[in-house]
């Protein structure tokens, strides 16, 4: 649910990074934060445990520029990936405009990816959304590791509908902005459809 303010001429959209624990959601946001001009970003808020695991969410507001005189702001959120934080994940999906699914490419994390994607679908359905109808991008992260699953296999399992996907190494930034740009574009085109 985006917020369009004709008074301050702003459009606010919410993008949520979803995925299994330790797949690199927070790392995506940290990289975006590091590489964005100070005047285009707000504070990166991380509600994390002492061991730097996300407890509730990370939040990064971005104001990338104007479209037709409207300032476009994206609010990026991550969810806590660990399985037992299910209740919190549900809350963060409220009012979402676009979803990035960050998959961990390591073969041994494939089960966790599948479980997380299922969890995403269930949580969206509870809010009245369908993943197929939302702006959605898949990021296959950690492509630099030696034990990764082949792309074809990852796509056949996690992306059977053939939606846009990106290979990434969030630690070094590879694929991070490409992913963001793709989902942001889908969100804005969705607005265009509605208005």
């Amino acid at each position, binding site marked *: *649910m*985006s*917020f*369009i*303010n*004709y*008074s*301050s001429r702003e*459009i*606010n959209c*919410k993008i949520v990074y979803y995925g299994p624990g330790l797949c690199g959601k927070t790392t995506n946001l940290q990289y975006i934060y590091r590489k964005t001009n100070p005047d285009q970003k*707000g*504070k990166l*808020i991380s*509600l994390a445990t002492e061991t730097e695991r996300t407890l*509730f*969410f990370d*939040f990064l*507001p971005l104001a*990338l*520029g104007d*479209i*037709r*005189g*409207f300032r*476009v702001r994206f*609010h990026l959120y991550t969810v806590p990936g660990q399985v037992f934080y299910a*209740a*919190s994940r*549900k*809350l*963060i999906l*409220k*009012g979402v405009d676009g979803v990035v699914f960050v998959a961990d490419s390591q073969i041994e994390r494939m089960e966790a990816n599948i479980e997380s994607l299922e969890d995403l679908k269930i949580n969206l359905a509870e*809010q*009245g*959304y369908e993943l197929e*109808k939302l702006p959605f991008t898949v990021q296959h992260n950690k492509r630099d590791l030696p034990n990764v699953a082949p792309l074809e296999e990852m796509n056949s399992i996690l992306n059977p509908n053939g939606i846009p996907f990106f290979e990434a190494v969030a630690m070094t930034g590879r694929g991070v*902005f490409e992913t963001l*740009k793709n989902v*942001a*574009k889908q969100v*804005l*085109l969705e*607005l*265009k459809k*509605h*208005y």
Partner: protein
Amino acid sequence: MAEFDLVMYEEEFTRIDEELQKLHQQANAKVLFLVDKNGQLIASAGDTHNIDTTALASLTAGNIAATGGIARLLGEREFTILFHEGEKDNIHISLIGQRVILVVIFDQRSSLGLVRLRVKKASEALTRIFDEISSKAEKEKAEGRLEESPFAEISDEDIDNLFR
């Protein structure tokens, strides 16, 4: 989509702003925020200058969402008021019409009783305004017209320009 997008025009914004200014004065508050449940700042009153309003909006919405989650676990529909007491400043957070969150920050120049009383009054007025906003949006959507849409003409180039 599950909900309507929130579309705010100048006219309603002015009315909301007036209500907030009035409440700011009557409650003797330091700062006031109105935030939607998804964490987006709608309006504010008072000296917001040293406050990161965007982050505050997002965290407040997270706070309300978490509290709502606890409420449902306990069989309550929602806890409509949250109050945090600090050494100098206190925060009074209330849900308005199940839709928006009113945040009042105040210090010893005011009191919890006064804030609660004034917030209650202001809530009624704000609820009416937001009811009108949603019925207006639904009507316009049904009639298929929305004034001067900035999106109709969005091009791929516009979007690419954002990421330069």
